[in-house]
């Protein structure tokens, strides 16, 4: 069995009275890409937002259950500490508009007041941008604002920003849904490279994308985890009829 990084146990997430994630249990393995797919409103985004405790920023939102990062229960840790170990990339590219490309990459260090010297910071910027396959495109304009890049470049900048903190896991919430096919492909390729360093949990409503890049796939429907398995098995012989219907495009 592969090394397990994240273990979600009986997780429930609520927005006030609305029960968005229902009793989900699943394990995420080291250096793999795990895709969570399902139709809109199935709770897949809420699920990953529980992992870095962003869910609770919404007024009236709360969770029950446990999420273990190795031996620590994320849900009982300080959210500030846990968020530095778990990176996140959002659906809409959101580089910080007031910051340069350089400052965007090291924003995590600057905002948190982590002091590192200039050469080390330069090295972090270069290696993060290289891993995000953006270095060659921006190395001559690191002092320019990040918002002047194209959508796909902005999203790769956000990936660089997330991995600059050297997280153990990165969460991606439909990272390519606002991008064109070419930019999408570029990000999918870099994720395959990236999984050598970091464990990836990606939410997508694009079945083909899940099939292309993921090692494991979870299928959620109406807040419940319907099926969770290796992607090879899931996409060839799903065991649940609902998964089968979804893959055939009957709903979602």
């Amino acid at each position, binding site marked *: 069995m592969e090394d397990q990084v994240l273990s979600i146990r009986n997780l429930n997430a609520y927005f006030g009275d609305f029960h968005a994630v229902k009793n989900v249990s699943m394990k995420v393995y080291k250096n793999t890409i795990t895709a969570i797919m399902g139709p809109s409103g199935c709770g897949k985004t809420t699920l990953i937002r529980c992992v*870095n405790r*962003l869910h609770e*920023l919404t*007024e009236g939102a709360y969770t029950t259950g446990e999420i273990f990062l190795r031996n620590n229960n994320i849900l009982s840790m300080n959210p*500030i*500490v846990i*968020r*530095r170990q*778990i*990176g*996140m990339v*959002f659906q*809409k590219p*959101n580089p*910080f*508009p*007031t910051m340069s490309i350089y400052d965007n990459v090291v*924003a*995590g260090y*600057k*905002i*948190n*007041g982590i002091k590192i010297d200039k050469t080390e910071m330069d090295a972090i910027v270069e290696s993060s941008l290289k891993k995000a396959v953006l270095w060659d495109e921006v190395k001559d304009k690191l002092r320019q604002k990040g*918002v002047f890049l194209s959508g796909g470049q902005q999203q790769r900048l*956000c990936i660089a*920003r*997330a991995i600059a*903190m050297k997280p153990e896991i990165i969460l991606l919430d439909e990272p390519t849904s606002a991008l064109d096919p070419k930019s999408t492909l570029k990000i999918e390729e870099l994720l395959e490279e990236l999984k050598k360093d970091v464990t990836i949990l990606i939410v997508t409503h694009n079945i083909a994308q899940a099939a292309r890049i993921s090692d494991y796939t979870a299928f959620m429907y109406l807040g419940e985890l319907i099926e969770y398995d290796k992607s090879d098995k899931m996409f060839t012989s799903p065991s649940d009829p609902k998964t089968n219907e979804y893959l055939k495009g009957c709903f979602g």
Partner: protein
Amino acid sequence: MSHFFSKERRSETIFRWLLLSSSFLIILIIFSIALTLVIESFPSIKHNGLSLLTGDIWDPVSEKYSVLPFIVGTFITSILALIISIPFSIAASLYLGEYAEGKRSSIIIKSVLDLLAGIPSIIYGFWGLMVLVPVVRKFEEILGIPPLGIGIFTASLILSIMIIPYTTSIAREVIRLVPQDIKEAAYSLGATRFEVIRDIVIPYAKSGIFAGILLSFGRAFGETMAVTMVIGNANYIPKSLFAPANTMASVIANEFAEATSDLYLSTLVSLGLVLLITSLVVNSIGRFIITRFYVK
């Protein structure tokens, strides 16, 4: 069909013409105000010359007129008022726009602020005379300076209260508009709420916050009634922050009724012209700064 079409066309033309002429009327009014001030100022400019701006004596009896004391008085009272009010307005706008956005407390505070903005300035003047002046007098006794109670400091205090709603409402609005996804990105990197405000919200909203401060400054700059009542109406360049003084607006309000000679009256009008020009300059500089630092 063609009849229908042409009728549509005609009403469209009339409507556009109506909009255009209204806009043009505004320009015309502003221009005629400026023109009136300039024409009425001629006798003053002819008699006083450059000493209107350079001297430091305002003595209507001997017909020596210099407006410098009032320019100084205006700048000192408005800047001091800004310094006093900014911490309160920024704090209030952060609370309203970031912490309490959409909550009941936000709605209540916002309505009270709107109410504060709607209080006639004469009421502020009364309140300043009856409440602030005695308090400042006590304060001056403690400091060991002549306990007048009235003066620049009192005027700035009353002005700072009057302008808080202006900065706060504009700053609150821009703080509220900082996109949620950018704030979430900062949270996802492990930022605390304070760090999000310091590194994301304020840099993003700073041009708007500045616009709010500028609006307040303009308001403080030209405020007349409340200032006239508590500033002490002394026509010389103030020696301390507690000294009685006059602003451009307050001296006009105070002396307009007793300006018996044509020259006296014309000089007050020329002071009005100086007030108009300085307001315009201050506003233009502010607008330049706003566009310079506008995000995106």
